[in-house]
């Protein structure tokens, strides 16, 4: 039996320990905010925060995070008012929106580590998250806004 804490709640799993965390979250726990984009840690759509680090849940097995604390987009802020989320709305970042949960989690993790990232630091830290609609200019502006106070 594998135990994990997701958004503050204990969850357990007695199936395949190699099951990617992504599919545990989406299909078993019903937390569909975390998205499947590539399955190979190439696009960042599945990004969640494990303890304080951004992690690609598609290549992280449920066993790898046993006993750890996982935050998904649903648990980032009780009212959805994390500074990154607020900044995202102020800048009207999303087009289709599918990658945005992953982008937001990556940005939130970046700001935990580096509260005032530079232009180049934002572009580098966010480079693992693909947006096919091409919202990058707004993502960068929103991260900058979140870092300076929304």
């Amino acid at each position, binding site marked *: 039996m594998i135990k994990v804490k997701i958004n503050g709640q204990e969850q357990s799993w007695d199936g395949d320990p190699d099951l990617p965390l992504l599919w545990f979250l*989406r299909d078993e726990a019903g937390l569909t905010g*975390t998205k499947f984009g590539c*399955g190979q840690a190439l696009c960042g759509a599945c990004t969640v925060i494990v303890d304080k680090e951004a992690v690609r849940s598609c290549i992280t097995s449920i066993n790898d995070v046993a006993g750890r604390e996982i935050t998904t987009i649903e648990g980032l802020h009780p009212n959805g008012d994390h500074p990154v989320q607020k900044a995202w709305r102020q800048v009207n970042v*999303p*087009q289709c929106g599918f990658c945005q*949960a992953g982008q937001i989690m990556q940005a939130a993790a970046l700001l935990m580590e580096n509260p005032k990232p530079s232009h180049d630091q934002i572009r580098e830290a966010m*480079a693992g998250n693909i947006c096919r*609609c091409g919202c990058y*200019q707004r993502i960068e502006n929103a991260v900058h806004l979140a870092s300076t106070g929304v």
Partner: protein
Amino acid sequence: MNFIDNPGKLRGFEKNIKVEKVSRRSILKGLGITGGFVLAAPVMTRQAFAYETGAGKMPHGIVVDPRVFVAVAADGTVTILAHRSEMGTGVRTSLPLIVAEEMEADWSKVKVQQAHGDEVKFGNQDTDGSRSTRHYLIPMRQIGASARTMLEQAAAKRWKVPATEVKAVNHAVVHSGSGRKLGFGELAADAAKESVPSIEGLKLKDPKDFRYLGKGQVSIVDLHDITTGKAQYGADVRLPGMKYAVIARPPVTGGKLVKFEPEAALKVPGVEKVMQVRGWPWPSKFQPLGGVAVIARNTGAAIKGRDALKLTWDDGANGKYDSVAYRKELQEAARKPGLVVRQEGDADAALKTADKVIVGEYYLPHLAHVSMEPPVAVADVKGDKAEIWAPVQSPGGTREDVAKTLGIPEGNVTVNVTLLGGGFGRKSKCDFALEAALLSKELGAPVKVQWTREDDVRHDFLHTVSVERIEAGLDKSGKVIAWRHRSVAPTIASTFAAGANHAAPFELGMGLVDMPFEIANISCENPEAAAFTRIGWFRSVSNIPRAFAVQSMVGEIAAATGRDQKETLLALIGSPRIVKPAVKDLWNYGEPYDSYPIDTARLRKVVELVAEKGEWGRQVAKGHGLGIAVHRSFVSYIATIVEVAVDDKGKLTVPRVDTAIDCGTYVNPERIASQMEGAAIMGLSVAKYGEISFKDGKVEQKNFDDFQVIRMDESPTVTNVYIVPPGPDTPPSGVGEPGVPPFAPALMNAIFAATGKRIRNLPLGKQLEA
């Protein structure tokens, strides 16, 4: 020769598309306002507004009826149906916003509800071709005006005053004489009893009184849900007892399963069943490829189970498809005369007598859509009834195809449209929903079919592969006197009909025969090309290779004559005029030419605007260069300037992009800007990385590592967007697609300016490093 005659939409093109006056009787069960009055023809008239569109010619045309699209509740909540699919353009917000504007509803009291697939009820629902705003601006205004009029009539009756004395203002109706006021909610029940006014008699708002339209201050309705993970995409649908499936499909288009050994897969924890999926012979429009499905309790187990399958395939006739060899075939075809599709003057003779002939041969490989949400669908089939939840651009077409595939009446199929995690044309094809329907029927349980990224890259309906060859003949003064453009590429029609090997009219009309330059001798030709995989619409479609070729050639002419790119471009566009290409039945994006002609004054205007705002001719640093390109597509006009920087090692960066768009009358300039910003990124992805190639009939790429797209660290540092203010009654035109085509040629013209290297073969890849 196999020409496709239907100039409109290929949907349903295996039969004759019947454009019918839809029976209004079937729409009486509306959203909430019900009544006995049935609207006559939905066709718009000259009295109502100043232009006509091709909306009425789409399958099922348009429906203008407030009872179908609008409901007012007693508490004042106004519900407006969005009948188009949201894939990132903002249409789910924009169309209801038009209704709210015209009916004087307060947007904060409006709820948007997504319509299911039912074209008899809602009119055409195909969200493609950059058509939604241009076809629905006026119908949505008419729907809003009808609802407003019904509310006003109800208030006038209540107060026993003439209707001319009352007016709807911001979610209430007021009486001018007495100042009395009734909220929309208070009038809802009475308004529902009012007859629906005739379209001809409707009074539309004066645009100067607009609160929302053209302002760009309203955010998309899904913004909060998107940022909190609550937004529902196709992949997010969960039903009680739902199974999870992935499918192993034939690696070669048209291939067949010979045998499968399920034993190892069935041992994977969580895997419940392995079963064959029916496939259709190629080509068969959007029917599934077939293969073997692994059914499991979660997607992870299904994927692991599929990895353990042992499969034997017969690759069939397309097993020889090889992109290296095919490219040579296309080049050879482009060097010989082909079917003449536009002829003015005598290009052959003029090329022979020209002082100088410049030849450019431009190659664009296949492209995959790779929307961030791979194809996915949920189906629940019970007996002769089917319910689908899917991110589809064409819910009406999906409904038709599910019914046909299962052999049940269309009325027994419900298609629920979720948000689309990107579409770009991929989700105009409903194959993934058909797979889910077939599996659910077989399983007797709801099932979600999830495509992996590898499935998506390997089994896409790809953008075609093309060679565009242009010969430009110049006289002694440097003036272009002859233009021959041969365009050779497998056609989208090949996905519908075996042996289709010439471009369909709608493909010819995307940047080939509609070429706007003022040149005396023009020949446009279309040599044959056979298809060996599934070809489909990709955002901007044939405009991408055509604009790349034509606008690169402008740069080549500028270089050959030692003139400025922009001046060369304007000289080629020539005088402000309406272009009348000598083309029989010119395809004009399905629009009447009177409303949407090729207007070189507008084309010149976007060039001049972007040149002014984008500071064309500015001094740039060493290793930097500026390039410009313009293209009309989806009846909009877009010009783009790209600044590039190329370092000593050939590394490319893009410090700045400027784009000007003239899309006529517009609804939401903020979303237009976001579409243009995104188009620059997609254009850069196409130009720098875009390539799907085949070997032994199989796609060589699989995921974002070998089919790369632009990431943030290589995206343009800044993209500026300028929107041309519309003239009075300028019809609205496309936004979703037309931003992409000018990007690649502007980029390549900039690279030439920076390095002296002319890139004619896409993608750029490592060509600058050589």
